[in-house]
């Protein structure tokens, strides 16, 4: 309608981009600078590209008895993937049961799932720890992700998606002779593909950013996630190798960013597309 560019809108957008991008840029610039300079508050906005070797250094060598960054990245990746996939599998199955099957106490079951929304990890962290301890899963990789894979939010989301599948489609499949599992695999999953992808992105980032639970359940350094690793690297103010901390932070940012960028198309489709 209007050909004249809207300067005000663009100014606001650019300001927003700066607000988000500046801290990230500062971390990247800081990672290539001398730790002492950073300590003195002489952080330059211009990165010293000659010092990019700090990345290979933190990736491959361990400092202060901790694991090298590649190992922590691997643990984080494994945990985030396990949480995202686990949450999706469990919530698809429970939403499928709630939507497509008539069983006694169906509504009770649904409300129980709903109520757990009010119990985030932090609230139930002590009992969860006890249960994990009883199972002997403290200081194990399994212990890192198993308690985090139940998700009321994802179940509710899939319930909405499945409810939107027209009854006729269910009936057509029944007449075609598809059993429950076949219907789930052939019709329900493909039809909700975009939603699954969108949820995967959100849950991967959620899993990647977990801090409190891994801190509590895994004291073994071999199980340190990248988030834990960064915190551990920040020791006494004067002894902290700030450029290494910042390089690690940049590296920790990359996998979630990659997931978001690569899955952006499905992510947007899954959150906006109403048509079934």
């Amino acid at each position, binding site marked *: 309608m209007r050909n004249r560019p809207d300067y005000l809108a663009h100014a606001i957008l650019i300001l927003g981009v700066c607000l988000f991008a500046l801290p990230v840029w500062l971390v990247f610039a800081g990672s290539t600078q001398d730790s002492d300079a950073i300590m003195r508050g002489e952080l330059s906005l211009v990165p010293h590209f000659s010092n990019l070797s700090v990345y290979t250094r933190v990736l491959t060598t361990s400092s202060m008895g901790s694991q090298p960054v590649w190992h922590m990245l691997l643990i984080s990746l494994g945990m985030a993937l396990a949480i995202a996939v686990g949450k999706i599998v469990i919530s698809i199955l429970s939403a499928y049961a709630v939507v497509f099957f008539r069983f006694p106490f169906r509504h009770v079951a649904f409300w129980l799932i709903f109520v757990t929304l009010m119990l985030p990890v932090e609230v139930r962290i002590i009992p969860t720890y006890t249960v994990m301890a009883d199972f002997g899963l403290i200081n194990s990789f399994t212990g890192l992700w198993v308690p985090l894979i139940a998700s009321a939010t994802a179940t509710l989301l899939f319930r909405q998606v499945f409810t939107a599948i027209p009854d*006729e*489609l269910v009936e*057509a499949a029944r007449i*075609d002779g598809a059993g429950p599992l076949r219907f789930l695999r052939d019709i329900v999953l493909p039809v909700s593909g975009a939603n699954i992808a969108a949820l995967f992105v959100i849950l991967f980032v959620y899993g990647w950013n977990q801090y409190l639970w891994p801190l509590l359940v895994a004291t073994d350094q071999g199980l340190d996630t990248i988030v834990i690793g960064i915190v551990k690297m920040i020791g006494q103010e004067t002894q902290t190798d700030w450029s290494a901390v910042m390089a690690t932070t940049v590296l920790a940012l990359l996998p979630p960013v990659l997931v978001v960028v690569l899955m952006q198309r499905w992510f947007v489709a899954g959150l906006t597309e109403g048509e079934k």
Partner: protein
Amino acid sequence: MATLELQGVAKSFGATQVLREIDLSLNDQEMLVIVGASGCGKSTLLRLVAGLETPTRGRITIGGRDVTALDPSERDVAMVFQNYALYPHMSVFDNMAYGLRIRGMSRGEITRKVEEAAQLLGLHPLLARKPRQLSGGQRQRVAMGRAIVRDPKLFLFDEPLSNLDAKLRVQMRAEIRKLQRRLGVTSLYVTHDQVEAMTLGDRLLILHEGAAAQLATPMQVFEHPADTYVAGFVGSPTMNFLPARLVRDGTAAQLEAGPLIPLQGHRPGDAVTLGIRPEHLTCGGGELTLTVDLIEPLGSETLVHGRVVGGDDEAIVVKVPGAVAPTETIAVSVQVGHVHIFDHATGKRIDPIA
């Protein structure tokens, strides 16, 4: 290819009785149309036959096999849904092949069957497309194709044409009829459209509030409607109803407005409802005088809306061939032999005593 038999089939949802004791028997290769206003239970009846609902009472037999307790997939029926219910993520080919794949048919056999059905329905160029890339009529054809490839004992149609525009509906109606004749598959067809019912059915079942009002051929239903509901439902414009009283030993009917209408034969009864179709009233020199409310020219014929002079304001529609000049009042005569007499209290048809 099979027969279908329903014995005392009834269905209630909680306290609401949707279907009351339906008895029905379809011959091999017959097409029966179930017709009625919305909420009369016609879709429920179809879903009971499909196995998507379980009857509260009664027995359903397909081809001599009791299927009352069987799952839809074990009944060997195929259904065409109102909004087609195509699998949105599958191509046209896969939509048609899905049921065959589940039955474990070989790949070659599936391709042969699907291509055969596609040929029959003119879907060949569309086999690779997704449902959303098709028009309404094409989707309808795919839904039919999905039913055909299965070679079922029974076709079930649930208002398959009501989402199409008027022109396409007429075209698809003829196609469905030709196809059903050609394949010779026993079919049950549900619709609320009386024209569809009349043109498609070998026989009609008119449902009214969950009970069968009449089960007969289209012409029988038109010429001998069993009650005032059926009489008013079938035919367009709707039949005119006038309260009357049988006089002269039941050989004539006296309208409340005064005029006397002669009848053929003599009937028992007293207070009755007179039913006359608009096309069975003739303009000029007759028993009835109407004050004209509205004249609607339709081209080949004209509809005159009026009221009986001296009557209780009963609206009357007369269908006249050709054009009608504007006028205040009009005299019409009733064609003897085309008057239907119904009991005033029960609405049931009263036939002359032989």
